């Protein structure tokens, strides 16, 4: 059960980050940090993870670094919305 809760919370945080990136378009790390309510250290870890999974991509322009959703990331958000709707029907949360 504890493991399940941990996995869910990781999924929830990942989804919050993806939603923040989607809302911003080209999202700066500070904006994502604020919207996903994470520490800088944890945010870096999650952004690396989501980039590795191909859900977001990084754009580097000199000093500025932004993130945007990949088509795979958009599909993932849609799929997770369906999953969330199903799960909530049974009185649960992701």
């Amino acid at each position, binding site marked *: 059960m504890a493991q399940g809760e941990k*996995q869910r919370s990781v*999924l929830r945080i990942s989804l919050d980050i993806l939603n923040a990136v989607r809302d911003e378009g080209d999202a700066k790390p500070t904006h994502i940090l604020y919207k996903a309510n994470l520490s800088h250290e944890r945010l870096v870890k999650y952004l690396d993870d989501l980039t590795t999974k191909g859900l977001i991509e990084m754009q580097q322009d000199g000093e500025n670094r932004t993130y945007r959703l990949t088509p795979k990331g958009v599909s993932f958000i849609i799929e*997770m*919305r369906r*999953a969330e*709707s*199903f799960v909530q*029907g049974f*009185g*649960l949360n992701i």
Partner: protein
Amino acid sequence: MISPMPYSALVTFFLNLLSAFVALLTSYYAYKVNRLVSNSVLRAISIGFMLLGLGLLVDAGTSIISGRTLVESFSDKVLTLFASATYLTLQMIAYLVIAVGYARAAYGGRIRPAMPVALAGSALVGLYSYSVLSYLVAFVLLAFVVFQGMLLRSGEKSRMSGMVLLGFILILAAHFILLVSVLLLGADLFLIGTMVQFLGFLSLLVFVIGSEVVGPG
């Protein structure tokens, strides 16, 4: 000699067949979503509805056999008894799995399902007693699932979230009617119970279809 199938057996057959389809569809979606979110309750729901779907298919087959032949031959009697016992057992295990899934979500891993052993032993006391017991156990388990479902309903609800609870409440009501029909040996009541159960599965079908058409927010 094969007798014409009574109307009630035909209706029971189709309602159980459709209910089985919905149960298996719900099981498939729960399995699919569980692969994404990895939730122990969803796993239980997936397994529970799969067993329920298989049980309803067996029950649909039983209504065809008993309806067509009026259970005249000994082999048909044995087959019908075996199929009924299989359906009732699968149904009890299915609701037990779902109830334990909800219980584990509500109370952690402290729940130990000791009930199947007791239920297996009760199969020896005859199909009638077994029917009464199984509908009673299914009713109690469903009541527990409905209660936990109400408790666990999150603050943020999807558009269709009430349909699942409505479905479980209708299936619960159906099991009360089915229990009474077994006690009174009322064929009409049994048909009504099957119809109410079908409405419960119909509510689940609306939910499953509804949750599939959720678009990007």
